[in-house]
């Protein structure tokens, strides 16, 4: 971050000496931005073949989880209007 906008990005103010909450907020923001996993990944070099395998795996995992969540929310809709009213 050096000198571009030094204290603007990735900054959390501390309220009434409550550093734990501030640190948690900071961690939450960083993990949402994906900085923590990027730093961990770049600690050692990741070869391009390994990187392609990992991206593929993450895509498949994401598709599977979204489809499963869709299925579960569909199945758990038990309160529905009766489609065959009158019969």
């Amino acid at each position, binding site marked *: *971050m050096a000198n*571009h*906008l*030094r*204290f*603007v*990005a*990735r*900054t*959390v*103010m*501390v*309220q009434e*000496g409550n*550093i734990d*909450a*501030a*640190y948690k*907020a*900071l961690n*939450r*923001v*960083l993990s*949402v*931005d*994906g*900085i*923590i996993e*990027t*730093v*961990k990944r*770049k*600690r*050692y*070099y*990741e*070869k391009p073949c*390994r990187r392609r395998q990992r991206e593929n795996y993450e895509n498949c995992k994401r598709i599977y989880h979204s489809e499963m969540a869709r299925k579960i929310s569909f199945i758990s809709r038990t309160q529905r209007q009766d489609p065959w009213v009158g019969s």
Partner: protein
Amino acid sequence: MHKLNCILSNSVRSACQQVAGSFNAGGSICGTSGLQRAVSSSAVRLQEDASVSATPGKISKDFSHLPPMPGQDSVLRWAGKKYEELPIAHIKATYNNTHVQVTDCEGQFMVRTSCGTEGFKNVKKSTPIAAQTAGISAAAKATAVGVTFVRVLVKGLGPGRLSAIKGLTMGGLEVVSITDNTPVPHNGCRPRKARRI
């Protein structure tokens, strides 16, 4: 280039202030996740933190998680100093050690301690307890020079990351804000090869 940065940062800042305003007005946490994803789609470096509201009962006055911007005049003062003039405590938390250095706002060096200067050796330097003692001694030396409020700059993901800040507060320094300054290369130098254990 600099003008472009300024314009971009101004637009991002105004957008995020609107977002923060809507947060403070609404006060509900369920809407934050969607908006946070929208905010994080912009560049990482010029990014503002989306202000996450704590439990609604605790927010007093208008405390925001965002720091005072360099362009705006904020009313907050700590020991009579504005946010830009507070001294800075750099904490470098590597995997094997933790360094704590307190400088003033221009970067002039004031206090420096690390786990090694505390008398720990080798593997004991990479523990949170060593980081805490380094923080305490740094705070003691800084209060001897005459520093009360400090903003913290953390670099690296090591075991001493949180406990060094805790040591600073235990030693008597007041922490005003926490910034994360971990160096993230945009694919610069090639790191060392992967370990095979």
